[in-house]
């Protein structure tokens, strides 16, 4: 690593530190997302050309059918995919930074299971559906987060170790509850719950898009600011505290923000494995930055999920594979590779 790996933008009394490599990678990720989005909008039972897409986005659709397919079906699906990927990537970056552990993702520490429990209770016990499932799973994720945080608290502070271990314990309990709900529930409701559990971006409408993108827009700024002290805390609370980092406050609020993002993503798509775990890890390795890159992880997460979605759609099956399972398979392989390569 050379001195020129970062540069400083200065304007008056303001200054920002930029990592050169991160900047280029982010531009690359962004270009990939644009490319993938175009392909995603074109693909489907009815092929739509790039020029027709451009005209439609400018409000001059060639036909009503094309307008309907693009605006009501493919665009929401695309935005849910990108938004969920970005939210999971950003959330995973925060979790891994707080837990100082590459396994510290919302999947592993039980929050995704909590979101699922919320959704399952709503679908199976109350027979709910639609947009309320979104709310129920968000509540589930937040409740689980609160419980894990308070159980992991000891003597007024939360250690990284306790957070991961408590999360795994709570996650196991919730997985059991989820299985129980599926077995005990009415068969029709259990099937529709199972579909939700598989994780999918099929048939998503603007009702799924808005909460997710609203959450992303509101939270990403404060999280970007909070990422800096989190980087300091990775050196140990004993060093960061006397340097003026309000350690417990930063941890609490960043955890909450990450939790809300993970909850929003899961509520929009169902549980999607692997993205929150892998995106921050891979982004950090690619950028070689000393701190966890939040934007990099978010953009990379969006790329991964978009890629997985395209893969499920062009795969030679006459039925669409749920994206949550595709990412799960890739995630398992990635984890094995991590373990085999002794990189943990």
């Amino acid at each position, binding site marked *: *690593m*050379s*001195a020129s*790996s*970062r540069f*400083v933008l*200065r304007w008056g*009394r*303001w*200054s*920002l*530190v930029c990592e050169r490599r991160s900047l280029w990678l982010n531009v690359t990720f962004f270009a990939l997302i644009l490319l993938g989005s175009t392909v995603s909008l074109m693909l489907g039972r009815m092929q739509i050309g790039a020029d027709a897409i451009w005209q439609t986005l400018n409000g001059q659709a060639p036909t009503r059918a094309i307008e309907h397919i693009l605006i009501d079906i493919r665009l929401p699906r695309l935005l849910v995919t990108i938004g969920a990927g970005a939210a999971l990537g950003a959330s995973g970056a925060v979790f891994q930074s707080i837990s100082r552990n590459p396994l510290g993702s919302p999947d592993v520490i039980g929050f995704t299971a909590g979101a699922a429990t919320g959704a399952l209770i709503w679908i199976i016990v109350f027979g709910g559906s639609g947009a309320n499932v979104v709310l129920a799973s968000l509540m589930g994720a937040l409740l689980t987060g609160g419980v894990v945080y308070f159980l992991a608290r*000891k*003597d007024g502070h939360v250690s990284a170790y306790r957070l991961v271990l408590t999360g795994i314990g709570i996650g196991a309990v919730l997985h059991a509850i989820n299985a129980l709900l599926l077995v005990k529930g009415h068969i029709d409701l259990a099937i529709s719950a199972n579909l939700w559990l598989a994780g999918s971006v099929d048939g998503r409408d603007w009702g799924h898009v808005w909460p997710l993108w609203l959450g992303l827009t509101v939270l990403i700024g404060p999280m970007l*600011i909070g990422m*800096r*002290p989190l*980087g*300091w805390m*990775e*050196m*140990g*609370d*004993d*060093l960061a*505290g*006397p*340097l*003026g*980092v*309000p350690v417990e406050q930063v941890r609490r609020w960043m955890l909450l923000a990450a939790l809300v993002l993970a909850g929003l993503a899961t509520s929009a798509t169902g549980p999607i494995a692997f993205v929150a775990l892998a995106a921050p890890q891979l982004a950090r390795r690619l950028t*070689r*930055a*000393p*701190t966890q890159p939040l934007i990099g992880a978010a953009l990379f997460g969006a790329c991964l999920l978009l890629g997985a979605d395209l893969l499920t759609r062009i795969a030679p099956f006459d039925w669409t594979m749920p994206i949550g399972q595709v990412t799960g398979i890739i995630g398992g392989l990635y984890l094995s590779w991590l373990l085999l390569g002794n990189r943990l």
Partner: protein
Amino acid sequence: MTTTSAPSQPSETRSTSRLKAQGLSLNYPGKAVSSGMSLEIKDGTFSVIIGPNGCGKSTLLRGLCNLLPPSAGHVLLDGRDIARLPSRELAKQVGLLPQSAQAPSGITVADLVSRGRYPHQGPFRQYSVDDERIVARSMKAAGIQDLAHQSVESLSGGQRQRVWVALVLAQETPILLLDEPTTYLDIAHQLELLSLLGNLNREGGRTIVAVLHDLNQACRYADHLIVMKDGGVVTEGSPADLMTSELLQQVFGLDAIIIDDPISHTPLIVPK
């Protein structure tokens, strides 16, 4: 002069103290470390805290910078309770080099040292020209300016410890607390580091408080010794006044004689 002068007012004697502990009780959960301790850190001195293992030396340092909030009593900085100071304000005045700190993987020396500037920065003031200048000066003071662009992981233990010292130097606090800064260093590097701290104290005018294990080093470099046992301060004063066979017997259970150090003419402890 009235008898009720505020502690922050400059007194006529030269031994003022900005940092004071009053009736300080420090506890870890389920374990009381010290109770009702009162202590003044004299400005501009190089104080060294000595005492047997587990007597609460590190805990006292953690208390003095509010890393461990007290269960009773106060730590005052210029007469104000540090528990009520904004964390950045405190971090501009009192710095701590803890025993354990982890360098992020892949970070360069200059980047790590620059992290000491945190209390002087903000979300949109991440690295000013001042910061750059002070980081360069701190690295020079710690003698690591030639390593600036190397990865911290590639350094030896002695060099790495100097990087951490440079980090707390870059924080530019008038008061600097160091928890066993010489641990893991070989004897030559230990002495080198202590001379560096001595220089910072004499030439930089910084108040330095360090926990040390080596009594002879403590006597040689400190101008003020704070002797602790069982969570309390037994006695304090200059090494020459303080060091006696009786004290060593009482505090460490050590049977030793004290002779004059032929080089520095400070007390030299020779165990029997």
